[in-house]
């Protein structure tokens, strides 16, 4: 049986609008794809899911056209299926272990997850209710307050898991909208904000109290929360501060960190300027330094904002690129130009304080470094220039001290992230932490995985203490 093919919107639309690129499965396509699943006895797919979704069972329920049962099955393990169905690297997780993977056509588990998540969104919109998420019974509620700090994927997941255990859960978000990287970072064309809003709505519907504009460490401190009776904390504030290259010209006008560029475009909706008030400048030639998912998000946003040329400038080769294959393919299709084995040396000025280009040097690959990837070695006399109007630095983040510097006795790793044990408990017993503030920049799904382990540990910690 051949696999169902995913359709994408036309290339013309992709270059001019922020509409979601992938159309996902129709009901027929989902049924066709689910029908291919042979329901292996040992279900290797489930072992590949960091969130622990019972993949085999949710696909079986799709086969039976029991979509409600299917989404319910997923949500037992994962509170963000509409998100994960879109942004998880399934090709490295559940789909790797699918028996069909050897033949190169694994069951497209991500698209099936997205299909049932979208099905629920549609159904609940039609019936104006949330079909599956109802508040846990009030009378069994434990009068124990837990504070989850940061409403990104880790925070949302931990809050949902703890409210299911009938704790009183408060989710604090510093920005004006919950979602973290899902709203400020990942662009609309890869993850529609409507999907994030609906996932957040359904978590709120479970009874989680979400407080936005609430910056723990500033608006209130952890000590204030302890005094107010909070018994456990989960810190999931993300990685934070953008890193810069440390090369000349980096503060010229027209040089953005990836976080600034994406926050302007996604959270503040600068792509709809002047309807929305926050501006962004792009020009016709854009260079992006780095080749992770964030770099590709910047590159593809820039194209949609009218850039004629977008250059990905990466110091290693395509094989070492940390981005998802699907995103690299999308960028190729959309005409992004790749400069591999290339490092920026200096961002140049037009004499008026604006970027006008970048001087680069070519590299060859040397010995593997600490990450196991072959490290770039500059080639002598290989300098060349690329003309640019905008330069975007997308080389990762370092730790934001805003909250964690206010917590006495909290211990950190050598790289400055929060130190945790295997339960994601920090050096302070009532404080747990997960996501990028623990691991450094990583994926949505690894944040979810950590949050789930932490939620279980928080539950045990609180029950033993009680």
């Amino acid at each position, binding site marked *: 049986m051949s696999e169902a093919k995913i359709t994408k919107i036309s290339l013309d639309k992709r270059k001019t609008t922020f509409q979601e690129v992938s159309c996902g499965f129709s009901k027929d396509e989902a049924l066709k794809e689910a029908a291919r699943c042979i329901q292996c006895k040992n279900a290797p797919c489930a072992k590949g899911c960091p969130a622990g979704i019972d993949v085999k069972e949710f696909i079986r329920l799709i086969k039976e056209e029991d979509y409600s049962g299917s989404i319910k099955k997923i949500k037992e393990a994962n509170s963000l299926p509409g998100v994960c169905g879109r942004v998880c690297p399934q090709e490295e997780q559940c789909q790797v272990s699918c028996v069909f993977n050897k033949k190169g056509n694994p069951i497209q588990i991500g698209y099936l997850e997205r299909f049932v998540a979208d099905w629920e969104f549609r159904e609940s919109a039609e019936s104006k209710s949330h079909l599956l998420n109802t508040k846990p019974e009030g009378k069994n509620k434990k009068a124990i307050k837990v504070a989850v700090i940061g409403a990104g994927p880790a925070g949302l997941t931990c809050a949902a898991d703890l409210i299911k255990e009938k704790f009183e859960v408060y989710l604090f978000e510093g920005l*004006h909208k919950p979602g973290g990287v899902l709203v400020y970072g990942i662009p609309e064309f890869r993850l529609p904000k409507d999907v994030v809003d609906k996932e957040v709505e359904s978590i709120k519907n479970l009874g989680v109290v979400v407080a936005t504009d609430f910056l723990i460490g500033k608006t209130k401190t952890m000590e204030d929360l302890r005094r107010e009776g909070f018994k456990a904390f989960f810190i999931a504030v993300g990685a934070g501060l953008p890193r*810069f290259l440390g090369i000349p010209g980096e503060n010229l006008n027209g040089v953005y960190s990836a976080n600034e560029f994406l926050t302007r475009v996604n959270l503040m909706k600068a792509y709809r300027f002047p309807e929305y008030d926050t501006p962004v400048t792009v020009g016709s030639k854009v260079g992006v330094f780095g080749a992770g998912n964030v770099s590709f998000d910047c590159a593809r946003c820039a194209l949609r904002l009218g850039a004629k040329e977008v250059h990905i400038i990466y110091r290693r080769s395509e094989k070492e690129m940390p981005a998802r294959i699907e995103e690299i393919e999308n960028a190729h299709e959309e005409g992004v130009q790749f400069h591999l084995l290339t490092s920026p040396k200096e961002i140049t000025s037009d004499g008026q304080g604006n970027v006008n280009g970048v001087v680069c040097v070519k590299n060859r690959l040397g010995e593997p470094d600490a990450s196991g990837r072959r490290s770039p070695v500059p080639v002598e006399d290989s300098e060349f220039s690329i003309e640019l109007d905008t330069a975007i630095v997308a080389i990762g983040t370092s730790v934001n001290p805003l909250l964690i510097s206010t917590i006495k006795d909290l211990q950190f790793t050598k790289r400055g992230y929060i130190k945790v044990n295997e339960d994601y408990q920090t050096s302070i017993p009532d404080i747990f932490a997960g996501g990028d503030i623990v691991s450094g920049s990583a994926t949505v799904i690894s944040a979810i995985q950590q949050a789930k382990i932490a939620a279980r540990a928080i539950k045990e910690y609180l029950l033993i203490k009680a």
Partner: protein
Amino acid sequence: MKILKSLVLTDIQDTRISEIEIEAGNIAVKAQPGQFVILMVNETGERIPLTIVSSDPKRGLLTLIFQEIGYSTKLLGTLKPGDSLYSLTGPLGHPTLLKNYGNVIIVGGGVGIAEILPVAKALKDYGNKIYSILGARTKELLILKDKIKNYSDELYLTTDDGSLGEKGFVSMVLERILKENSDFQWIYCVGPVSMMRVVSQITRPYQIKTTVCLNTIMLDGTGMCGSCRLTEAGKVKFCCVDGPEFDGHQVDFEELIQRQGRFISQEKQAMQKLQ
């Protein structure tokens, strides 16, 4: 986030300075002199950083003063008592380091005078001897001079057009004071970037610690984006989490002035929405 009071402090042809009082219980409890908030007028609005001019923790109120200079501040100026902001976060940034320095000069220019008010008040409480120099383009823009006077041992006023106080700039007065007597332990300055640059240049030879309060272009205001970055002592700093106060003798003002102009053409485009 409800606005309780709004009033226009000054309204002359091209310049309007307004004051609003906002319900903000949690922020009012924590706010310290030198800190700021970020607010949004509505869902489509920009995130606007504004210094907290005063806070009343008991009543849970914040007072903000702003010049209606661009599209977003003009939009903020249209809000009436009873209206609510869409978003309000804070208090952000490090508070001013307050102590008994001894003899202090505080310099305020334009709407920056509002920002030195809470610092002046606190410095007085610490027993400092305060010389205040306030400057503006014309007399109507010399706001809050009576309030600042309450906390000042000496008060000097300047206007560019000579309509009030001495004709000229604050820098002129500062230079004269320091020539006569350089026994000052701290100089604090808030105003237009060009003024803060000149003040820092004047005080440099005297080696008197000079603190400037910067208002670079911010976005999230929580250290996440680096939009507000500047160079201090050769190092990149973020105004929102490392500041907003910096060492005037170490700030790269030229770069700062250049970065303030990042979105000038977009600002013009946005202003057309008001017509």
